């Protein structure tokens, strides 16, 4: 039984805080998406439930909880129940290695500074990549176990899309890791502290603009969002892999999707946008800047969804393999050449 030190208490508190922050962020994203979609479409969106409609996500969750939990008779019961669990689990665990703030002593409560991160692994970037690859199983099992045409097609298409775009995702990651010189996200962020010429922050997005675009595009495709959401498009496939799900299982898939978005944005913030470093705030209060940057990326996510038309499936796959992957490879080569020539 480990001794109950303030450090242990702080670590448990961080785990609880991160978990609930993710849940709240999913709820907030529901509200943001609906209000922003409404604003883009010149209507008002939910404004009645609570002040400015802020309680709308909670009303949605309560409604979903009261729905009947259905299961098709011919569905494989074990896999049918397992699939949303896998999706949600992978979505939550990926955030365990993402740092969201500098070392802080919580205003002197702790004797030594503690990192704002659930687990500081020195191969953190690869862990995120690994958990993203495991997320494919939730979708493909949902499609298969539902035993229905739309679900199977949606599940297979969605998982094929995810594993295709993982390649470009990995190449963009590799390019920025050449700059950051480490696989640990904390060290990559610390490499972005400081300014050039006292004005331009040393964020990697200025050195790797193409890498950032590739990363965000692949991230959007990985999370089955925005122009790459053919497998779950209402107009094409009923609802794709989650057609046969209702009530809380459906809610888990949606939760997984929103939390994946948050994770991709958080990782992009750490890798490209300087993490928690920003003007006017010390590093120990850097989580405020982190939230602002993640919020900006999520805003772009939602904006993209309601502005761009959807890619057809074969266009989507052609784009991923024939355009994005070669660009990512060339970007990696160019970055390697640049690092070799200019030195890091």
């Amino acid at each position, binding site marked *: 039984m480990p001794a109950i030190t303030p450090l242990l208490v702080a670590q448990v508190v961080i785990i609880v805080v991160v978990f609930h922050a993710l849940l709240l962020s999913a709820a907030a994203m529901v509200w943001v998406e609906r209000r922003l979609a409404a604003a883009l479409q010149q209507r008002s969106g939910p404004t009645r439930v609570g002040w400015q409609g802020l309680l709308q996500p909670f009303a949605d969750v309560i409604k979903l909880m009261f729905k009947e939990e259905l299961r098709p008779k011919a569905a494989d019961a074990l896999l049918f129940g397992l699939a949303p669990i896998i999706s949600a689990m992978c979505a939550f665990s990926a955030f365990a290695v993402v740092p969201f703030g500098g070392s802080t002593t919580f205003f002197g409560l702790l004797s030594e500074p503690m990192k704002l991160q659930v687990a500081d692994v*020195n191969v953190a970037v690869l862990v995120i990549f690994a958990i993203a690859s495991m997320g494919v199983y939730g979708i493909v099992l949902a499609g298969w176990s539902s035993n229905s045409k739309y679900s199977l097609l949606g599940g297979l298409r969605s998982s094929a899309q995810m594993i295709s775009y993982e390649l470009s995702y990995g190449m963009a990651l590799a390019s920025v890791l050449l700059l950051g010189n480490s696989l640990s996200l904390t060290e990559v962020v610390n490499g972005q502290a400081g300014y050039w010429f006292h004005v331009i922050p040393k964020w990697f997005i200025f050195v790797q603009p193409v890498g950032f675009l590739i990363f965000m595009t692949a991230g959007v495709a990985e999370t089955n969002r925005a122009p790459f959401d053919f497998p779950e498009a209402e107009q094409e496939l009923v609802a794709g892999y989650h057609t046969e799900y209702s009530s809380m299982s459906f809610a888990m898939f949606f939760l997984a999707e929103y939390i994946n978005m948050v994770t991709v944005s958080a990782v992009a913030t750490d890798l490209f946008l300087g993490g928690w470093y920003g003007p006017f705030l010390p590093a120990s209060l850097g989580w405020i800047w982190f939230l602002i940057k993640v919020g900006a990326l999520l805003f772009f996510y939602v904006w993209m969804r309601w502005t761009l038309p959807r890619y057809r499936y074969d266009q989507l796959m052609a784009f991923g393999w024939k355009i994005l992957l070669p660009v990512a490879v060339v970007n990696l080569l160019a970055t390697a050449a640049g690092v070799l020539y200019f030195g890091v």
Partner: protein
Amino acid sequence: MTLFYLFGAVAVIASLLVIAQRNPIYSVLLLIASFGALSGLYVLLQAPFVAVTQIIVYAGAIMVLFLFVVMLLNAPHEETEHDEKIHPLRRPGPMRFGAVLAAVLLVELLWALTRAGSEGTAFPGADVISVRAIGKALFTDYAFPFEVTSLLIIVAMVGAVVLAKRDTRRGGAPAPPTP
């Protein structure tokens, strides 16, 4: 030590269930669980890079390939042979011999491993081998095999596409000649 036993037990039990399951989809999922346990064992062996690569490559890519093929061939709906329902040691001829051979192999390996001394050599207290060291060795000492594996992967990709492609030139068999 408890972690070692935990991960080891999960790996062994999951592997046993893989070869005992009739439904190939369950076999694939149980194998993924086994790979997860092996990944934990690699972390215990102070090899985090191999652990994460195991998840990315094996559990995340190869097993997805298996799952796709199983779904494509609709394999769970094959009729099970009568032979498969009998205990392995009571099946006819070759299968019984095979099961016995595997058991003999296990006994032989365990005998060879436990013969040299009752306690094995403990691990030296070395540091975690960093990814940097692995990368360095991979690109200097093992550079030739590394480039050859890239060739191997291209060959495998082309081969897999060619082998699995549907033959679209097929025009149908000609009608048998009338007597």
